[in-house]
């Protein structure tokens, strides 16, 4: 039973990690909590549903298209709303409020066009499972972990082994210096938003498939949990996001087991608040010196 919950927690945690990566990537480069990320994740799951179920494009093309479109949504958000604020040199709080506004817009447009009710999402991998050490690991859970790990590896490869990844890391360290070295920082930021959107869409599809359900407001809770994961791991750090996701996922399934399912959502908040107060830099974050 406990083992079963750990399996559940791991699968769910990998999903959260995929969303958390999006928060981390954007935060690393802009020092901004992209509040709209949860709604982007919901958008990914919703349009995957449209492509796969309504338009019958098939599972793989549907998912790929959803990832592409969600990535583009990420770029649009930056281009339309955040880049102008950077140009104006607005205070950070303006960007935060803007992303809250965007989250509202995206979620409510989804509600208007697709309806606010919960709809069935297809389970791609069937209900068969493997018995392991007294628990059952479903095919869905295994595939969630496998696919998430593959995407994570791709992300790590992009960030640490490619030219654009180098530009991303340079912009994270010092955007001004990066600009002087000829890096198009705005392009790097847009690319970061694209990556965040792509991984959020994949997370959306996986988590929607896991619960076999999809609805426009699904991004609110999942977004907050993933944000908790990102903060817990140390926002801005990729391995931190993964570790944070796994911890949050497991804490959630433990809460379901020991406290009952009504408390499943509160655990992430309590972890978040405790981390922010006790160790705001997370497990992998660094501490700064006050400058005067």
């Amino acid at each position, binding site marked *: 039973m406990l083992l079963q919950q750990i399996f559940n927690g791991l699968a769910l945690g990998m999903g959260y990690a995929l969303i958390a990566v999006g928060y981390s990537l954007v935060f690393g480069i802009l020092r901004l909590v992209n509040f709209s990320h949860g709604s982007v994740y919901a958008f990914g799951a919703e349009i995957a549903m449209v492509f796969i179920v309504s338009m019958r494009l098939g599972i793989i093309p549907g998912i790929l298209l959803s990832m592409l479109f969600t990535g583009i949504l990420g770029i649009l958000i930056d281009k339309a709303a955040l880049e102008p604020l950077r140009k104006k040199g607005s205070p950070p709080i303006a960007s*935060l*409020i803007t992303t809250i506004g965007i989250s509202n817009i995206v979620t409510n447009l989804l509600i208007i066009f697709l309806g606010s009710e919960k709809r069935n999402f297809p389970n791609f991998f069937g209900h068969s499972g493997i018995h392991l050490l007294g628990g059952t690991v479903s095919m869905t859970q295994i595939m969630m972990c496998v696919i998430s790990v593959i995407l994570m590896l791709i992300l790590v490869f992009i960030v640490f082994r490619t030219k654009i990844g180098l530009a991303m890391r340079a912009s994270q360290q010092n955007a001004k210096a990066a600009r002087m070295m000829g890096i198009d920082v705005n392009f790097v930021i847009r690319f970061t938003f694209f990556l965040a959107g792509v991984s959020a869409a994949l997370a959306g599809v996986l988590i929607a498939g896991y619960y076999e359900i999809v609805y426009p407001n699904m991004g609110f809770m999942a977004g907050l949990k993933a944000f908790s994961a990102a903060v817990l791991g140390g926002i801005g750090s990729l391995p931190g996001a993964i570790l944070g996701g796994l911890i949050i996922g497991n804490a959630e399934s433990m809460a379901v087991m020991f406290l009952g399912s009504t408390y499943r959502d509160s655990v992430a908040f309590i972890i978040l608040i405790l981390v*922010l107060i006790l160790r705001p830099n997370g497990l992998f974050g660094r501490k700064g010196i006050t400058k005067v």
Partner: protein
Amino acid sequence: MDKTGKKWKLSSFESFAWRNAKLLWIILTVFLLMLPFVFRNPYFLTVVAKIGCYIILGLGLNLLTGYTGLVSLGHAGFVAIGAYTASLLSVKAGCPFFPSMLAGMLAAALIGALMGLPTLRVTGTYLSIITLGFGEIVKMVLMNWQSVTNGTLGVKNIPKPQIFGWKLTTANHGMYFLILFMIVLISLFCRSLMRSKTGRALRAIREDEMASTMMGIPVTAYKILAFVLSAVICALGGALYASLIGYIDPNTFNFDVSTLILSIVILGGMGTLRGIYVGAIVLIAFPELSRSLMKYRFVLYGAILVLMMRFRPSGILGWRSSLPYRLSGNVKKKLRKEADA
């Protein structure tokens, strides 16, 4: 050029209002007192009362976000605490409205002080996220603590306030005048506060925390104070709102309410009183105009946040006053004496 032109227009309105202050006050007072007797449509009056409640909530959040510069994304939590405490006391314990309301405000003050504590360690965006988490936790407690809160069923048949046996309802305009009275009271409170060392300290903290510390301002204590005052005002608004609508459940106070209050403050103009009135009127009344607007209203609220941040972060009515700083009569007299000497 365009910018200066705009500034000139706004400031000319301001000095016009200042010159004709007495007349404008009389017109406004007469209008507000006559309003319920002139427009007798009950639907209209309910919307007006709702606007009034949101003005109170806006004034509450404005203290924290507008003056002190701390953005809260969970103020619906304080509204809920006020509404639930007051309603449950009236419904379950038969306690009269005003003591129940005070109990709600007290509860919110305690929780507000608790919420202020993280400001010791956390600032900016992280603090906003904590407030958001707080709002959600309040909602979860309301849902899960069924023996007290009735869970998702909510609280029904919340009684209307009574003064000396006279029941204040929407129909007899009692609610209207009660809410109006509260708005006036809270506005006066905010105005007095802002014209004292406390108000100056709060604004200084918004402007530059380090410099405020160096002026000997106990920054954390003032932030906690701002949280408490803000929570108390929102709880008052919540108690009134519950009594006005007559029914509440945990979803009455969800994240959308928090963003709505924030939109009111931002649209009208953070750190002003006039902005809050206008913000609440626009955002609450506008969607009522038609069904399709109602459908799009949350998109609209979102768009307002985005557009205001981009084009006018100070809000429609937020501008730097072109009037001279208000000196008291005594100070003016002394200055004149010095000038003569």
